[in-house]
């Protein structure tokens, strides 16, 4: 199927330092979420479901796993003849010093040649570490209808939290008149989601100018958007409705997983019209044993549960032995919980063993404990 001449670039170079040991060896977009997914499955599946053909993935921090993961475009159906996922880490170029991506805008600037080779009319800039379902083709229609130079997706947030976000102040037509980064006294509650559609020719010009600007941070939010506003360009806010999460911390990653447990949750991963695709693993179905007790939980294939599991998310092939008790926990793939072990309010990282009888986490703690090493 021929596509809508919009190319997507996913910014996936961030570390996510506050995710502690989870991002020691992998970048944040590769972090596990929701029982079977990695966070980057969301923007990639959204692209595939929105009829976007060509997706560039800009990687930088600990990119080995992420590069090989994202490059297998067939996982998301991005593998037709004129389609593909292109992994773009920083590279050495003729006549320029080899440099890392200095900012979000610089990551795009350094790949102008890649984008040019596909000659798109529009470029969609996405973040690789957000969890949400969104039809970008609707945002593109809005962009075209408003005859905009750039369109920014915004999310209404509670007014009292607005000072934590980049806030867009708009006129009644949705045209952005002012952008304030983390304002002390916000005038609106429309937070930027870091999702932009640009007219490629215009953006290209801006980026070329920005590259050599010594004053610039080479960042979309700090430099490109304010500059476009100062030049009186037509910037529009596209209001998104639905579930959206940027999981920056262990607590918020845990919370986002717990959100899936509530009935009719907003993200609805069971929606057959907007599936989130991910790696296909060959395991048996999950087995719930004779002595098991499973309550209010989200469990993936390959799991073997013989103990008690309550209010928890279990990823692929987790083993919970007899008399073990797992409550309010997120167990990532291949975690083994030994007989009689007790886990409360914790995230257990991939492959970690909790030995029989061990006690992990605290039911009364304010914060979520991250377990990344074997517990004896």
């Amino acid at each position, binding site marked *: 199927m021929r596509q809508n001449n919009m190319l997507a670039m996913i910014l996936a170079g961030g570390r996510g330092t506050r995710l502690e040991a989870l991002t020691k060896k992998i970048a944040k977009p590769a972090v596990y979420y929701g029982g079977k997914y990695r966070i980057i499955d969301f923007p990639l599946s959204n692209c595939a479901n929105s009829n976007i053909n060509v997706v560039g993935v800009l990687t930088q921090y600990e990119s080995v796993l992420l590069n090989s993961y994202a490059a297998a475009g067939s996982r998301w159906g991005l593998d037709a003849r004129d389609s593909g996922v292109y992994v773009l880490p920083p590279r050495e170029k003729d006549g320029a010093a080899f440099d890392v991506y200095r900012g979000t805008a610089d990551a795009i600037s350094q790949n102008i040649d890649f984008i040019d080779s596909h000659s798109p009319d529009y470029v969609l800039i996405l973040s690789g570490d957000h969890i949400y379902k969104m039809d970008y083709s609707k945002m593109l229609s809005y962009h075209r209808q408003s005859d905009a130079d750039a369109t920014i997706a915004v999310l209404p947030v509670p007014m009292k939290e607005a000072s934590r976000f980049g806030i867009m102040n708009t006129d009644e037509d949705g045209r952005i008149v002012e952008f304030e980064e983390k304002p002390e006294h916000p005038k609106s509650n429309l937070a930027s989601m870091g999702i932009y559609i640009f007219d490629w020719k215009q953006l290209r010009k801006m980026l070329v100018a920005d590259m050599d600007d010594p004053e610039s941070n080479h960042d979309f939010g700090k430099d490109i958007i304010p500059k476009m506003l100062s030049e009186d360009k037509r910037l529009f806010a596209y209001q998104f409705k639905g579930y959206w999460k940027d999981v920056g911390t262990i607590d918020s990653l845990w919370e986002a997983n717990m959100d899936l447990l509530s009935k009719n949750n907003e993200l609805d991963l069971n929606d057959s019209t907007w599936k989130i695709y991910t790696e*296909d693993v060959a395991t048996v179905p999950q087995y719930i044993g004779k002595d098991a007790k499973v309550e209010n939980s989200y469990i993936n294939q390959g799991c073997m549960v013989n103990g008690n599991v309550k209010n928890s998310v279990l990823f692929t092939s987790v083993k919970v032995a007899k008399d073990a008790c797992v409550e309010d926990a997120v167990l990532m793939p291949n975690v083994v919980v030994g007989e009689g072990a007790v886990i409360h309010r914790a995230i257990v990282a991939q492959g970690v063993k909790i030995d029989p009888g061990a006690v992990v986490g605290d039911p009364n703690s304010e914060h979520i404990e991250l377990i990344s090493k074997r517990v004896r």
Partner: protein
Amino acid sequence: MCNAFGIVNFEGLNVQIKGLTDYRPAGAISFLGRYRLIDFPISNLSNSGVNHIQVHIKNKPRSLIEHLGTGRHYNINSKRGKLHILPARSDVESGFYNHDIACYMYNMHAIEQVNYPYVILVPSHMIYRMDYADLLEKHVESGADITMVYQSVDNAKEAYMDCDVLNLNKQKGVLGIEKNRGNYKSRNISLETYVLAKDLFIDLVCKAANTSSLYWFRDIINDQCSELDIRAVAHRGFFACINDFKSYFEANMSLLDIDKAMDLFDEEWPMYTRTSDSCPTQYYPTSNVKNSFVSNGCTIEGTVENCVIGRGCTVKKGSVLKNCVISPGVTIGEDVSIENVVVDKNARIVRKKELIGEAGNPLYVKRDDRI
């Protein structure tokens, strides 16, 4: 790499699975929630290093073709390997003439073209785990013309009716193949798995076609037992022959014995299937699940005991499922009790509040049925 190509054969006339085979060939029948029967022979071949696999289909090919696709999910190399779907002639008047020999003759050009010296024939309605590379090595070393596989069972009076039985001498030479009529407890059930040279295979197929228009491949093998050196190798471990409704139900149930399941499924020997990209399964606060295999994409609010649940099923509040095999996409409504029932794909049991089958004689609910 394995110096043989594989042929996955369709089931013989002795395989009649009430209801389920009305809609699809045996290979396409759902098994243990997430698989279809044909996933097991193809995974065995693929894991054994067999790169070229032919699947012969007799009739009703739609669901099987959809499931097999390009074969990418079976880890078959997209350039050097091939999953070749070969339908039988569609204009055969009677089911009696629609046998494997007719299908091989019809597709002979495709068999002749394959550039491997050996062929491994496997059935689509039997479930077991086996390394065919080992089997081929044994075959070549032994110098036998044909190597077959069997399993010794001691319940042939009640099960495996009309299945092939091997009569063996002390040296495991095959003296003849007969049908199991249920007269003896202990028998060597044929796994309908054959290893032989490709040239001999083609000779035998032609010979069968010339001998009788009703001959299956097993008939010509039986005829040749005194002429050729045919030997048998025993398979040990989990084995299920799905030849009737009862065996289908029991094979699913037997894997709830986790030791048996661990015997069939080995982490180093994955059984592949087509992904449906469904999300994990959601258990609500009212769910109560014991001793069951549950596939992805389900939402469970009721009680489930000793069951196999397919992908994307909905089990509503207050419902009770015991000893059931539920195919993908099924809905069990509120306060519905079912016991000893096989529910076929996408059926909905909502209004009728009770459906209880006998322990040895489960009920069957048709595909897309509304109850």
